[in-house]
């Protein structure tokens, strides 16, 4: 772990963050540390507490338990001061659709009390390639352009921390790539970024990732560290004859000891398990079948996450009994 900006106090440092909504624990004793200038990918299934965590970090929600700092400021006491230095991009587009691009940016600049509003707005429009569309109503923009506008508006006041809640949901691949280029540019300028996403390719673009499910932090570190830490062993079975059915093979394997992961990919089946010895013992019997060729491979990040999610669900349900 030796990325630029590693030195210095963490920008986000929270411990034991807990939030309950009507008796349901949405975020459960979550601890997180993000160093300055890093891009932290925040991953987890829907409803795992990503949005709630982000909202607690920027002062939109008050944690029920836990403590910590954001930009060196206490998340409970200094919510107002944190808000001034944080840029937050909401999951749903939350600027004014009945206002033009320029009017939206001007409003934001004025609320943050920036001096030389025109200059700030023009620079932001230029930087994000929105200059031609300045007079267009935000509601008429396509998803990709709306996302650009939202990013431009959320960094207008030069925040030190950027919180992005699924910024690329529903955006085409080209726009996503451009967007990530901008995120890296911002991080290079020293802004710390926490970005939640469902896309694995995006997770791999982060310096560091954190994976949460059912409100609990399950894994944290670089992509390589998280993959290695999961201790998952995977094989790919490729069909050798046209009649060999991957679905049939999956049905045979499902529920057998050591098999934690089964995912068909076209004419191939991805098989994995947390216990290497048990997995190989089970597979030994099946590998005799010449209809499939077997190859051990590296688990993907997606394999790891699905595996982690399955395991934590078992724990979660086990705890409930």
């Amino acid at each position: 772990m030796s990325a630029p900006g590693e030195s210095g106090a963490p920008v986000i440092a929270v411990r034991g963050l807990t939030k309950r909504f009507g008796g349901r624990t949405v975020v459960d004793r979550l601890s997180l540390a993000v160093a300055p200038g890093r891009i932290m990918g925040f991953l987890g299934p829907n409803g795992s507490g990503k949005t709630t965590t982000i909202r607690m970090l920027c002062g939109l929600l008050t944690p029920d338990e836990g403590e910590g700092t954001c930009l060196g400021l206490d998340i409970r006491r200094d919510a107002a001061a944190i808000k001034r230095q944080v840029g937050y991009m909401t999951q749903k587009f939350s600027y004014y659709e009945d206002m033009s691009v320029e009017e939206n940016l001007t409003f934001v600049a004025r609320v943050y009390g920036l001096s030389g509003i025109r200059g700030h707005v023009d620079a932001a429009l230029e930087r994000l390639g929105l200059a031609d569309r300045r007079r267009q109503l935000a509601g008429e923009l396509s998803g990709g352009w709306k996302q650009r506008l939202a990013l431009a508006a959320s960094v207008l006041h030069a925040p030190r921390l950027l919180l992005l809640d699924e910024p690329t949901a529903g955006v085409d691949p080209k726009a996503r790539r451009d967007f990530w280029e901008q995120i890296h540019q911002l991080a290079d300028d020293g802004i710390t970024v926490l970005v939640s996403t469902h896309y694995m390719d995006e997770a791999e673009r982060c310096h560091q990732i954190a994976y949460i499910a059912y409100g609990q932090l399950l894994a944290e570190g670089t992509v390589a560290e998280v993959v290695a830490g999961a201790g998952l062993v995977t094989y790919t079975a490729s069909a050798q004859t046209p009649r060999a059915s991957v679905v049939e093979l999956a049905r045979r394997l499902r529920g057998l000891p050591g098999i934690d992961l089964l995912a068909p990919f076209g004419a191939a089946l991805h098989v994995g398990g947390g216990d290497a010895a048990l997995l190989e013992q089970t597979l030994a019997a099946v590998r005799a079948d010449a209809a499939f060729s077997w190859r051990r491979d590296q688990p993907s990040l997606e394999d790891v996450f699905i595996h982690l999610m399955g395991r934590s669900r078992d724990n979660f349900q086990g705890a409930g009994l």
Partner: protein
Amino acid sequence: MSAAFSLRRMLAMIGKEFVQMRRDRPTFAMMVGIPLLQLVLFGFAINSDPRHLPTAVLDADHGPFGRALVAALEASTYFDVERMVASEAEADHLLARGKLQFMVSIPPDFSRQVARGDHPALLVEADATDPAATSGALNTLQELAEDAIAPDLTGPLALLKAGPPPFELRIHRRYNEEAVSQYNVVPGLMGVVLTMTMVMMTALSVTRERDRGTMENLLVMPLSPLEIMVGKITPYVLVGYLQVAVILAASLWVFHVPLVGNLLLVMLSSVLYIIANLAVGFTFSTLARNQTQALQLTLFYFLPSILLSGFMFPYRGMPVWAQTIGEILPLTHFMRIVRGVMLKGNGWTDIAGEVGMLALILLVVSVIAVRRFRRTLD
């Protein structure tokens, strides 16, 4: 393949509507609540033939007939003789401020003149700004006065019973001599229009931010609740002022409502009234979860406002509980100010109490609004 109408499909649709109706509790409560509110207001609060109207008597006669008349007024259900006044000026003042509905003047020597058969005049002055409030009482007055005196017409005076009434009843409808109801309705309408539009506009403004998802963004920005509230309200103050100007122009030049008092007073108190209504609307928008609920709350507020403020029905005809509700509604006070200034020529000191009430309501509502407005999404 499929028929134009299928019972199964229609039942599916009906089923879905029932499920959604059950989920939307506030709307359901409103559907039950509004008829109940109307029943209570129309059934118990409203009385178009008000009784127990505050009356003062100026008795310069001190004779038997004067005393008999006062006793008869008191015995009737229409007049409550609340005080005896010493001078015409005092009575004028009380009428102008709306403390009195009627003023009965018994001239000096009234008893003796009746006895002599001189047919003296008995003067009754009524605050006729709202013609409906006085008509019932005035209709009974002639008969009531004759009956009051009749028992005293004994001996040689018994002759007077046979002829025309032994005195002349002079009714003087103050402030609205021809009993033109527009004079009363049009200035009041200004308050009603402002109540509906101003409350609705601001009630929707905050819930709109919530419905469109822009509230979350607004909350992470360094804006205080007071800044948001004042920012949201101010544009509508101008819109409200435009409405005031239009209605005032129409009432003066189309309906020819007299303007006895100072126009400036109406204009200034309108500002206060507009802001008070906007604050009420803002409070509703902090209570409602979405725009539909905000509209329902507005309706729930609008109904008692027009019914209990004295706009449609005489304020004095209502029972005490309804009058108390009326007192906490800004429209009641604004109605008194506008009618007072335009029709009675009220000056600053006459309306100070009502203006003070408006300011108090504004203060209380603003405090609630700012406190209710949450900085977080908790």
